[in-house]
């Protein structure tokens, strides 16, 4: 799976680096000073690199934990996101990472302890108020968990800090590390969904909808709280039928009591990212969707956006109370 590993000299002897290298004895190892020497170089082609991404082991020096954009949240006033990894195993055509990064290589920041240290500072700053931490913006939280052991490090931290909540955003079925331990109340495993046919067209290399749903059922059976993320909503002529079937499938199977929150928002991207994606995938149907520009962002025109959000909201609120439902109407 991983045939090349770049290793920053500074973390070459970090225990997490050594453990990961041990998993890939046949990979070519290349030392580098800073990951940006590889990751940020121009003239790279994301689409070509996606054929055989390398793993870059690095140290994150600053900005470990960042505030989320104002409109993102699932009920708390203080919201932060963090990325122990950059880039994703999957290849979803709507994903903003393709527009944001020059490289498709996976960067893993091995200095988890610096992340939790900064979380501790933020929790101290906010006293007893709830603070939400979101993982999975710049990577899939669980897809590489067997390699990174991300959850094994972070879940004990949250277990000891009950005023904090961790969201693990994912499409992955790599839930073994979760199932083999006791669930914690302040962690939400949030699965992203699009209807099956849309997922097959756009979410390349990701587990299919049924497998994700099965992962949810397994997690709920073990007592974990789950989240449902219908973001991005993808427009197609028959979206009502397709999303209707998806909701019916999901809500007929899951346990509503262990469903922490549901959020949704239409497909939208910063204009620059979308233009870059169009160049990478000029024949991609998604970029021929009905789209409009608003404040330097591109997404569905207001009438489509609102019609889809209203349709979905009507069904979702039949299944969960409104205080668990977080729609995003903005294009940003």
């Amino acid at each position: 799976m991983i045939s090349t590993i770049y290793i920053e000299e500074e973390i070459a002897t970090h225990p997490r680096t050594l453990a990961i290298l041990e998993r890939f004895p046949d990979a070519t190892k290349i030392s580098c000073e800073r990951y940006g020497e590889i990751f940020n170089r121009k003239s790279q082609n994301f689409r070509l690199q996606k054929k055989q991404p390398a793993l870059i082991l690095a140290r994150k020096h600053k900005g470990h934990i960042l505030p989320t954009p104002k409109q993102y949240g699932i009920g708390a006033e203080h919201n932060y996101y963090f990325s122990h990894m950059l880039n994703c195993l999957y290849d979803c055509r709507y994903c903003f990472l393709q527009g944001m990064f020059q490289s498709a290589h996976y960067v893993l920041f091995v200095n988890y302890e610096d992340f939790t240290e900064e979380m501790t500072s933020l929790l101290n700053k906010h006293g007893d108020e709830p603070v939400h931490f979101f993982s999975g913006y710049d990577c899939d939280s669980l897809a590489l968990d067997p390699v990174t052991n991300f959850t094994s490090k972070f879940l004990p931290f949250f277990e000891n800090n009950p005023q904090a909540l961790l969201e693990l955003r994912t499409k992955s079925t790599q839930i073994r590390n979760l199932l083999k331990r006791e669930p914690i109340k302040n962690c939400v495993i949030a699965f992203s969904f699009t209807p099956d046919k849309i997922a097959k067209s756009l979410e390349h290399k990701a587990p299919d909808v049924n497998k994700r749903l099965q992962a949810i059922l397994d997690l709920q059976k073990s007592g974990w709280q789950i989240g449902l993320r219908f973001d991005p909503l993808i427009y197609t002529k028959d979206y009502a039928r397709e999303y209707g079937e998806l909701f019916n499938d999901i809500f007929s199977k899951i346990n509503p009591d262990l469903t922490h929150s549901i959020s949704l928002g239409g497909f939208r991207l910063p204009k620059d990212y979308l233009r870059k994606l169009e160049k990478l995938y000029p024949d991609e149907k998604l970029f021929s969707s009905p789209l409009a520009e608003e404040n330097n962002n591109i997404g569905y025109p207001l009438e489509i956006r609102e019609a889809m959000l209203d349709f979905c909201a009507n069904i979702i609120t039949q299944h969960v109370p409104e205080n668990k439902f977080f729609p995003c109407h903005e294009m940003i």
Partner: protein
Amino acid sequence: MIHIFCALPCEAQPLIQHFKLAELKQFDLFRIYQSKDKEISLTLSGVGKINTASAVSYHHACIKTNAGDAWLNIGVAGHANIAIGEARLVNKITDEHDKSTWYPQIVFKSPCESAALITLDKPSEDYQDVLFDMEASAFYQIAIRLGTAELIHCLKIVSDNTTQASSKVTADTVKTLVSIKLKLLDNLIESLKPLSAKIRSITSEPEHYQYCIEKWHFTQSEKLQLSRLLRQWSIRLPDEAIEAFIASDTSGKSVLQSLRNKIKGSEFVIHD
């Protein structure tokens, strides 16, 4: 197209014969050779970084290159302990002089192992556990400005090591070493071809683009819009005859408006 750069005539000669390249006499600053179908060209740079950087720039100016082309620096190199005659694709280039580094992106099944390389200003027999050459950093530094990173590579064949120093390497030895690795070079080129094709396909103009810009005037910004709309048309209205639809338009602006309206009025289904 594939653009090959060699420092020495003895490195180039086996390649010139293998790919049946003929010299392009009209270019006299550096010797440039090309295959009959123009798919492979080779420039003889001479030894060292200045020669190499100049040769890559000159080649680019003389031979029309594009983002889908592959760029290869092929030659011999020293190494402390890799056996003579072994080939390595370079995975890290360090310029000894200013310590700049580059990381060639090997996103295909490599026909041989890869190794790090240091580009020196002067020959050295103080071998290390990395390849030594005198051209790769200059080649890569210029080629990366002209091409796509995943298509730019250095293939080095070990000609000297701690058991046989460079002072003992002759031109005939180099010719033999390169000749033995021609099959490996063919394999490398075969591995790069699908990547080149992918870049060519995503950077090519959409169908009907030339027809439109020859028939109507478009500003630069309108050309981008045209390109986007033509691609959308081919996706959303694949069975509709576009040229007949816009035949009566009298300006570039009205073509864009016609295309926009027609596309907007069509149904959109994201999957087959």
